[in-house]
């Protein structure tokens, strides 16, 4: 089971998250967690895995009228092509073969 608690301030900005990754229940209740946070902090809980995934991969998430509003998805990471070691070796060989040795 995956579940996510989203804590937000009086303006709807997300200030903290608490999530569960595994079976069972959260080890700490939401009210106990709220007791450690600034006055005015509120919490919503979601357990839809797709929504949790969207939350975790987006920036600028807000809570408006008690509802989560997903922000902008992060740019996907650039794909680094795998190194072509054989080509690099061939290149080094070519460079070496063109060197003139001087004494």
């Amino acid at each position, binding site marked *: 089971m995956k579940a996510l608690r989203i804590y937000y301030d009086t303006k709807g900005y997300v200030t*903290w*998250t*608490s*999530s*569960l990754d*595994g079976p069972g229940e959260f*080890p*700490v209740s939401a009210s106990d967690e709220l007791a450690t946070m600034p006055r005015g902090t509120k919490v919503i809980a979601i357990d839809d895995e797709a929504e949790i995934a969207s939350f*975790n991969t987006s920036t600028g*998430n807000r809570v408006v009228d008690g509802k989560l509003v997903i922000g902008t998805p992060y740019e996907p990471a650039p794909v680094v092509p795998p190194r072509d070691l054989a080509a690099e070796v061939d290149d080094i060989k070519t460079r070496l073969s063109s060197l003139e040795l001087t004494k």
Partner: protein
Amino acid sequence: MTIATGQDIEAADVLALTDDSKVLSHSRVLTAASGDVAYTGYGFQPKTIIIFGTKGGSTASWGVADTNLAEMCIYSYSTDIYVANTGAIIYIDTTTGTVQSAVLKTFDADGFTLTWTKTGTPTGTDITFMVLAFGRA
């Protein structure tokens, strides 16, 4: 089991105090916001844990924590570079200034809780980490 003060103990007595163990794998989205994550499914309250994590490439972290939540790790962010860190149990340094790291917050009845901190805007392949937990069922 209780070991009295001054009592002679044998290896078996020590093992009896941590006579259960479990390995589980978890993941962490690199872009996820800072916060607590409770990892469950261990079947007992761990007393110590060992965590190995990576996001692939040459980025990896190896961390340990004891019963008092003292923790440390060694992490790598590039080939043949290893850094000791006494302030986290897992530290995934993706590029300069972009990190997902965690400290052990609590040992819980069915697992443990990590407090993750995101620094910068790390992106890329999510973190996979394996946990070996020792405890007593």
